């Protein structure tokens, strides 16, 4: 009798777990972010006083290579560069886009993912822009 009771309590527990995990819709998780859209943009974006998109892209690529990324894709029209980096078993994927801002500036936006998580830490992006500044000999300006 006691065995039956024990078994039934285990079954109930398993059922509970299955039902909890089964009911959640996971598709919406792919569109979630913990930061507000505006804040995320300002964390990930900097403006530079140059209009040479090609040179900017090449500098972005060489900065990413300095950071141990292997470049997977690049597109001059979109101004996008995507690369992958491995740390231990973790995979980091980063896309950097370069687009004009007004007549005299370029906007550079970096977007990184660590494993299955989006990177939303301002200091991490600041590290990237610091390296980019050094290779460009230009100052990165915060965008509001």
């Amino acid at each position, binding site marked *: 009798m*006691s065995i039956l009771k024990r078994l039934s309590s285990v079954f109930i527990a398993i059922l509970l777990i299955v039902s909890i995990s089964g009911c959640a819709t996971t598709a919406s998780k792919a569109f979630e972010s913990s930061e507000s859209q505006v804040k995320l943009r300002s964390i990930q974006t900097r403006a530079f006083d140059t209009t040479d998109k090609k040179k900017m892209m090449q500098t972005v690529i060489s900065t990413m290579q300095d950071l*141990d*990324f*292997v*470049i*997977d894709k690049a597109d001059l029209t979109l101004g996008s560069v995507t690369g*992958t980096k491995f740390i231990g078993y973790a995979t980091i994927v980063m896309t950097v886009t370069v687009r004009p801002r007004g007549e005299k500036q370029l906007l550079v936006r970096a977007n990184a993912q660590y494993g299955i998580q989006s990177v939303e830490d301002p200091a*991490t992006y600041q*590290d990237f822009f610091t390296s980019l500044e050094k290779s460009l000999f230009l100052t990165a300006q915060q965008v509001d």
Partner: protein
Amino acid sequence: MRKKFLFLKLFVVIFVCLGVIGCSSIPKGFLKPDENYLEARQLQMRQYDTTNEVQIVTAVAGLLQDLGFTLDNSETDVGFVAASRKADATNAGQVAGAILVDTLGILFGGYQNAYGKVDSVQYVKASVIVKPNLEGNKIVVRVTFQRIIWNISGQINRVESVKDPKIYQKFFDDLSKAIFLEAQKI
């Protein structure tokens, strides 16, 4: 009654563990260059005495094909070519070691399956950037390699950037030949 509590405790522990794993945070500072990045740059870059970017990109694409790679992506306007190939990753020493471990395991009554964890297949990715140097009188070529290694059971054993200087050295030796061949229209 005590048994029931034990189960309850067990579930609580499992839930807490799952919760902790789920919230694992992203390490800081992974977008900072490590201290020997200049050495890596030295290894991965060569300059060529020409200003013909197209000729060098074409030679790079040709060389990657010579090495058995297939092209995955390219944007010649920024001098970029990406390619990859799958190759064998078995290492006789590692296989022999695994068989020894398994045999010992059988002899002493344990199941190890070290053989199932032996490196089997590797996927190597190469990405090449060709661009003018700062003075604009030479062409700089930079190549980086990454590889993913699977074991015999089909699981990923490890992922890594290739750091072996010999591999880069050979790539650039071959590239010099390819540029020569390109110039001779072969």
